[in-house]
């Protein structure tokens, strides 16, 4: 099989890439400058290392695409390339903040369902201010917001509800009431973007509380059940609505 000739990574930013595409990087990323390469006139050589994000894999001469989606690039901090893909099934990744549902208590450890292939484990000492005598009050069926500390394909994922300095910083048991529902992972990332219009527009409507888990789960709580359901419906539908349709829908609601 003839070696596939790749295209320059920077030329494809913002375009659809398919698995199997080979992306070539500008020459200063690789040690051995052999082979044909499209020399792009980039500015000053970036310092630091290139980050090869989800959907991409390093292979010899460049980056190999493993998922289909749009190629994104971030020039800051050494540069990063990743593929913005859409999926509904979550795969646990270290450092992600997720919402888990407690399914079982096994001695000192809780089993949480996070939507992955295995239930995650959470030790009762991983809460802020928890000691052997002072145990957290967690029951089966509770919702927990935590982050992964171990998450690879060989081991069962483990979660904690404190960060590296020992503070909970918002993690832990999510309170009573509210509504939990599932959306696709791409929508979550859209909602978590720094200046998300959807969130800004929704925040003008009613006072409410929102917890977004990277595993596709969203928990919403508002003052009345009706308001909660309205917010849920908007969040579920806004994935496929254009900005104008969304504004129309919100205008109707704020008019009521």
């Amino acid at each position, binding site marked *: 099989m003839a070696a596939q000739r790749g295209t320059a990574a920077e030329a494809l930013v913002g375009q659809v890439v398919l698995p199997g595409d080979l992306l070539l990087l500008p020459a200063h990323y690789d040690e051995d400058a052999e082979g044909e390469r499209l020399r792009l006139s980039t500015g000053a050589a970036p310092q630091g290392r290139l980050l090869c994000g989800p959907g991409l894999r390093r292979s010899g001469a460049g980056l190999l695409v493993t998922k289909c989606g749009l190629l994104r690039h971030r020039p800051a901090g050494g540069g990063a390339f990743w593929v913005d893909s859409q999926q509904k099934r979550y795969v646990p990744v*270290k450092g992600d903040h997720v919402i888990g549902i407690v399914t079982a208590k096994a001695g000192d450890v809780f089993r949480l369902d996070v939507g992955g292939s295995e239930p995650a484990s959470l030790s009762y000492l991983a809460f802020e201010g928890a000691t052997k005598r002072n145990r957290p009050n967690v029951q089966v069926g509770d919702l927990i917001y935590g982050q992964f500390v171990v998450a690879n394909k060989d081991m069962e994922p483990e979660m904690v509800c404190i960060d590296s300095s020992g503070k909970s910083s918002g993690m832990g048991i999510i309170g009573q009431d509210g509504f939990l529902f599932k959306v696709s992972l791409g929508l979550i990332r859209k909602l*978590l*973007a720094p200046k998300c219009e959807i969130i800004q527009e929704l925040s003008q409507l009613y006072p409410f509380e929102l917890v*977004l888990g*990277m595993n596709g789960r969203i928990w919403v709580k508002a003052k009345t059940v009706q308001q909660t359901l309205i917010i849920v419906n908007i969040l579920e539908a806004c994935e496929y609505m254009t900005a104008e349709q969304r504004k129309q829908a919100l205008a109707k609601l704020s008019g009521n």
Partner: protein
Amino acid sequence: FMQRGLDSQTKKQLEEEEKKIISEEHWYLDVPDLKEKESCIIEERSFLRCEDLVYGRMSFKGFNPEIEKLMIQMNSKCKEEEIEEDDKMEADVSDEEMARRYETLVGTIGKKFLRKRDQRVLKDDDEDDEVEEGNSSTKPSKRAKKMFLKPQD
């Protein structure tokens, strides 16, 4: 093998022979060492480090004030680190309050180490202060107690 009474010389000879045997049997690669290439590419499976995502817990219009405080704290952590923390440290106890507390503190701890006589003086002073329309008769009698009274014949 490890025999007692062997001279150190013979021991050394034995060891050398053993080493020779071992090194001849050792396999080694006849290939020049490959230079380790320093890879300039890091692989990452998390979106968190690629994109700039905000914190997942949010509250709007004062529904949950603690989370709103947390939102401000977490989202500004990305931009300005440690500047806010320093400000908070200074504002914990103002200088005036500190001086006031310290003043009273010195008095109370000082009382602890007074001798008995001095303590009684303090007590008298306190009682005198408290009892405004106090019995004046008690005063001289108390004062008199301190001095030795010669018994009258």
